């Protein structure tokens, strides 16, 4: 990659905005569908948000929820929350209110940023949790203090003058938890910037870059462009939800906004390739296509590379707990092999170990769990010290100090050239269209239905490198009357959909009289997966 001009690192994220606003005040910080916000305006408006939040009592270490579809205002509010000293907590705008409520309660969120498309949900939530203020709604939308954007912009524009260090919280992103409740991953300004700086340098981000924000803010993939873009003074091109879901609109946006860097999950790029009307678009401005979150089917990757011959392609890998840790600039792919590409090698300044089940390093070439030591390592899971400790391996240093590694749970093989091949998971975490899901969380959600005896959830490969979720359920026998007659797969789907984000809801729930068992009496999930692959067409057509 081209070396970017040398920059001093910043200590906290708001400094990156201030620096860009000073260096190039009129340069676009954010665009969305033709609307543009300059760095100077981003600086002023995020200060207005920060001052408003400060006047409502928000200070260092507080949490401000972001619960809205994408908009320029949402990104302004994200920066404003951090400028006020708070951590922003992005919440999936399509999640059911029960799921949102858990996050609001877990983080004791009293200040929310939302939008008018969510006003009914906010009104419902405000009767259940102690919300005080909601930005982005108009007065009367919900029974809390609602402050519309025009009103927000009238707040003072001076810097709120909050003393922040790299140790202050920047954001908390919630991910699927195996105990049945989502858990919050806390990043500080230091851990967020450690990744933003190394990624911006590695991929040569410059002010002239226009980088897509395709992933929702509650998906950690978004921090690459949001903070990597900010430290480089580049432009973030927001891809609204509709454009992210309809490939022809996505490709139109790429052309209209003259995007230079795409960052998205492989699923979105596969859709772009097969349904994106690429013949009709001029995409020569694209110099780099980054993807991550799950495996990209090599056949589709090779075809897209041929369609965009002027662009380089980069696979970025890393669990949200360590932001990013390895990357691969994809080499020319042999036409006669669909072998998966590797996840590449470490960014500078990071260390990896590959260990067996007793935490002993394995020989290069052998399968083991990948452990990562990095400045981008999270502070911990929000209010889950035990889970935090379990996620770590501590190693004594020669000086008596201690190194802390994050256990990724990903099984890899270290190749002779120092790169890593992804093999799979050692547990029940899966990726479905880029989303990270714990199958145990889904079992807990379905199992909470009063008539369910046991729910067994398993993932079936979809033939496109992703996975689909299915479930079988046994019902409690001998309930009052013939209770079993009242509940069907549809009722259980509704029960699950009220508790889980959409991507985690099984595509079908079958009620069965008994679940296949292994010789040790456990539910035989392998048999269920094999039966699903035999009996149904699991392949979602992509062309």
């Amino acid at each position: 990659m081209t070396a970017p001009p040398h920059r001093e690192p910043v200590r906290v994220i708001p400094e990156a905005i201030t620096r860009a606003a000073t260096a190039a005040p009129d340069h676009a910080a954010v665009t969305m569908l033709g609307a543009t916000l300059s760095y100077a305006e981003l600086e002023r408006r995020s200060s207005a948000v920060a001052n408003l939040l400060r006047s409502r009592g928000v200070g260092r270490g507080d949490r401000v929820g972001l619960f809205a579809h994408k908009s320029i205002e949402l990104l302004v509010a994200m920066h404003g929350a951090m400028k006020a000293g708070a951590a922003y907590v992005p919440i999936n705008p399509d999640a059911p209110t029960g799921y949102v409520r858990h996050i609001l309660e877990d983080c004791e969120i009293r200040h929310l940023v939302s939008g008018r498309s969510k006003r009914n949900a906010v009104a419902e939530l405000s009767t259940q949790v102690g919300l005080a203020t909601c930005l982005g709604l108009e007065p009367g939308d919900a029974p809390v203090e609602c402050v519309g954007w025009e009103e927000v912009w009238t707040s003072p524009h001076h810097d709120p003058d909050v003393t922040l260090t790299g140790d202050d919280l920047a954001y908390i992103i919630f991910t699927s938890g195996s105990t049945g409740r989502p858990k919050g991953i806390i990043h500080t300004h230091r851990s967020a910037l450690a990744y933003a700086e190394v990624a911006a340098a590695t991929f040569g981000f410059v002010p002239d870059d226009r980088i897509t924000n395709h992933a929702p803010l509650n998906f950690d993939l978004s921090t690459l462009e949001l903070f990597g873009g900010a430290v480089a003074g580049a432009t973030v091109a927001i891809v609204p939800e509709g454009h992210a879901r309809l490939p022809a609109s996505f490709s139109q946006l790429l052309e209209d906004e003259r995007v230079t860097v795409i960052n998205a999950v492989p699923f979105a790029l596969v859709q772009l390739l097969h349904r994106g009307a690429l013949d009709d678009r001029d995409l020569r401005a694209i110099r780099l296509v980054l993807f991550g979150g799950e495996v990209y089917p090599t056949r589709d990757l090779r075809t897209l590379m041929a369609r965009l011959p002027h662009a380089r392609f980069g696979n970025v890998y890393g669990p949200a707990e360590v932001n990013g840790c390895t990357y691969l600039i994809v080499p020319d792919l042999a036409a006669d092999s669909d072998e998966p590409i590797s996840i590449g090698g470490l960014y500078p300044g990071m260390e990896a170990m590959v260990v067996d089940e007793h935490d002993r390093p394995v020989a290069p070439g052998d399968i083991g769990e990948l452990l990562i030591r990095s400045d981008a390592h999270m502070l911990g899971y929000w209010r889950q010290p035990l889970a935090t400790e379990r996620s770590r391996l501590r190693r004594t240093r020669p000086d008596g100090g201690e190194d802390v590694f994050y256990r990724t749970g990903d099984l890899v093989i270290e190749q002779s050239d120092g790169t890593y091949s992804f093999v799979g998971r050692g547990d029940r975490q899966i990726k479905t269209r880029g989303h990270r899901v714990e199958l145990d969380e889904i079992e807990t959600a379905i199992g909470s239905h009063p008539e369910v005896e046991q729910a067994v959830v398993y993932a079936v490969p979809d033939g496109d490198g992703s996975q689909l979720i299915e479930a079988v359920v046994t019902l409690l026998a001998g309930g009052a009357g013939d209770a079993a007659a009242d509940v069907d797969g549809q009722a259980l789907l509704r029960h699950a959909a009220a508790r889980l984000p959409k991507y985690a809801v099984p595509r079908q729930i079958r009620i069965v009289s008994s679940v296949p068992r292994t010789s040790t009496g456990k539910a035989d999930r392998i048999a269920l997966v094999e039966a699903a692959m035999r009996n149904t067409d699991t392949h979602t057509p992509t062309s």
Partner: protein
Amino acid sequence: MEATIAQFIEQEFRDQGEDIAVAADDDLVALGFDSIAYVRLVAFIADQFAVRVPDADVTVEQFGSVRAIVGYLEQRRAEDETVPG
């Protein structure tokens, strides 16, 4: 046509465990209609109304709501009638 499309979309939501009544002007994306559901909707429309739907036509503007889809299909039919063959 409007009712047929709305019913299909409501069934898609039901298949995902959600009971949502879809009005003609509702923003389908804001309701949570996702990309895979859109793929099935386009296939359904092509089959049901015997119309070819090029990829380039499946945009936010033309597929953002039931009313927009109906408008698009009516325009396609008008075009087909003026172009012989």
